[in-house]
Every structure is written in C-alpha cells, then in structure tokens.
C-alpha cells in the first residue's frame, strides 16, 4: 500500500512565478528556501506522485457548473494556462490509477466529488508544483475545491474530506511513495476594496493552529468569520484538507512571509509521516 511520505501546504501567489523579483529579496529567499527544503525531502523520499489540492479560479469550472470538489482523473493536465506566468507550458503527467482510487474511496466515504478527465492546472497548482519538480515530470493528481463562491464547504468539512483523501491514498496498492500538497492561501484580498491587504495576524494564528495537536478552534470557525481574513483566504480550505489527511501529526512552519508586493501571505507548512502522532 502507498505511504504519504511527505505532506505540505504552500501559498500559490501568481506573482511568485510572474514577477518573482518584485518581492523584497530576503522575504522571497526565505519563502523559496522553504520550498527548496520540501523539494529535497521529496527527492530523498523518492516520491512517485503528488496529490495536489488547490482552489478553483474559474479555470476548470464557472458559475454555470461549479462543484465543491473535483478530481482530475486524466492521463495529463495542461498547465499553466496563464500566459503571463513564467513557467513553461506543459502537459503534466497524471496518475489515473491513484486518482480513480481517490475518487472511488472518497465517494464511498460519503463525499460527492465531481470528476474531470480534462482538468487543467492553472497557477494554483503550477506555481507550487514547479518548485517541487522544475522538470515537471512528477505525476500529479489535481483536486480542486470551491473556495470563493458561496455556499462554501466549512473548514470542518474540508478536514473530513482530507481525511478521506489520506485514507484513500494509504489504501492504494499501485504506488508506494506519495506526496500530498495543498496550494493556496494564506490571507489575501482580490477584486474588492481591500485588494492588496494581508491579514498577518490571521496568517500567524492559522499556521500556529496547524502546529497544534487539537485543531478544534480552527475547525469550528464559521465561513463568515474566515471571510474576514480576506476573500481569497478561503483557499486555506486546501491546507485544512491536508491537515485532515495528516491527522495525528503536527505541522511545522518552515516559513511565513507577508509579501505585499505579491498581495499574499506566503507560507509553507510541512508534515512528515515519520513524526510520532503524539509529539
């Protein structure tokens, strides 16, 4: 059966690939250093595929047909779509066997994800994936969550969905070493009067919650309270899903930088399977 040999969550501001140099050098260096640590861990662990969870940006779906969850089952995923993103346009290999297994197992666990054999990978995936594998050959299973269009899944629901994803990966016989990644967040405000703001207090509180054994104070947060940290901040649903998949393990914050030039709280939190569950 597969192991989740590495799990992490990272912010995915488009500017980190479109205009990397616009950020203060020391902040950008600390953020990318954290992602480089993650890449080294992945290489060391011999990761065979990555399951990535990100937010929907009206890339694959729109208001005429918008699932809360969708899983990419295809042989490949075209990305990135944004012309202005300085990442080569490629078809990222998919992992249909694992994706189908996650689909089946999460449905069996009581969730109703949509499926797509033609899922595209926008900046939400590609900015973080590119830092994990600059050659872009690592097979990916993309999962998109609706993070911006009400009604939205609660954090508690995302956590439970993540648990189901984690259980599914661990019951898959086709691979041995799988990585899990959330891409999105932290706080940001887009297309609204507070565009450019970052709620640093929320971001620091949020990553501290992920380092705790008991996530109760995080998981009972209602959606309208979360929205006060920014209308893009709901992408932390992906982070909470990864926390669910890694329940029993504490997160470790490798980096947090409020990068105003990228209009985003930029963080990296990592989990490792070998961590004891009662640290």
């Amino acid at each position, binding site marked *: 059966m597969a192991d989740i040999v590495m799990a992490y969550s990272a912010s995915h501001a488009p500017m980190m690939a479109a205009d990397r140099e616009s950020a203060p050098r020391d902040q950008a260096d600390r953020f990318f250093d954290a992602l480089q640590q993650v890449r080294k861990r992945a290489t060391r662990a011999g990761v065979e595929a990555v399951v990535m969870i990100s937010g929907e940006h009206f890339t694959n779906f729109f*208001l005429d047909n918008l699932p809360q969850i969708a899983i990419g089952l295809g042989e490949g995923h075209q990305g990135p779509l944004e012309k202005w993103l300085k990442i080569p346009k490629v078809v990222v290999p998919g992992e249909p066997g694992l994706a189908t297994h996650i689909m089946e197992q999460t449905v069996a666990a009581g969730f109703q994800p949509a499926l797509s054999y033609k899922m595209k990978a926008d900046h939400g995936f590609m900015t973080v994936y590119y830092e994990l594998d600059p050659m872009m050959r690592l097979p990916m299973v993309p999962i998109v969550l609706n993070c911006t269009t009400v009604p939205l899944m609660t954090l508690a629901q995302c956590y439970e969905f993540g648990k189901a994803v984690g259980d599914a990966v661990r019951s898959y016989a086709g691979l041995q070493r799988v990585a899990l990644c959330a891409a999105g967040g932290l706080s940001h405000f887009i297309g*609204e*009067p507070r565009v450019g703001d970052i709620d640093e207090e929320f971001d620091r509180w949020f990553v501290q919650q992920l380092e705790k054994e008991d996530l109760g104070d995080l998981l009972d947060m209602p959606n309208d*309270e979360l929205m006060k*940290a920014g209308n893009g901040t709901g992408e932390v649903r992906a982070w909470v899903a990864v926390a669910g998949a890694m329940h029993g393990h504490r997160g470790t914050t490798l980096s947090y930088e409020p990068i105003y030039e990228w209009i985003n709280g930029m963080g990296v939190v990592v989990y490792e399977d070998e961590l004891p569950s009662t640290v």
Partner: protein
Amino acid sequence: MSLYQLQRCLFDYLRAMEDAPEGSERPALSVEGYDLTDDERDALVNGDIAAIYAAGTHPVIVNGYCRAMGYKRADYRPLLESVNAPTEGKTRWQTS
C-alpha cells in the same frame, strides 16, 4: 439572472483574450447576445470597474478583468473603496 449574464459576458471576454494569439491587439468587449440591464450594459461598455463590482460581480472575475485591462492594484483599489466599507467585527485571531 442578469448578474449571471454580466459575469458570463466578462468571463467569455477574458477567455477570448486568453485564446488570442500572443502580441495581438486587445479585442473589444461585446455585450451582444447577453441579457443585460441598461446599467449592466453601460458598466461593461464603459469598463466601469466600480459599477461592475457594485453589481455583485464575483471578485475572481473582477480581479481577472482588472489584470486584463492592465490595472495594478494601486490603480483600481481606490475605484472600489468608494463602493463599500471593509467588514467589521472581532475575530478569534485578533488579539487587539
């Protein structure tokens, strides 16, 4: 229903821009075929970002439209600030 039509119009426009060949001229936004109110049509034709936002357009679409029009956040933030005030209210992460 027309809010959806307004958003659909912007979405289709943004997709058309993405599909346009590299370096080609920015296409004009067309409101033909969309069931819009006069105010919505005016907002779209005039590229009135404040009115587009005030109509209830999804912020992801507002964001995409502003980027496509070449606005930096410093340019369009003042246009939106007049529309509504930031949300008030204490949250669990605030210490002060």
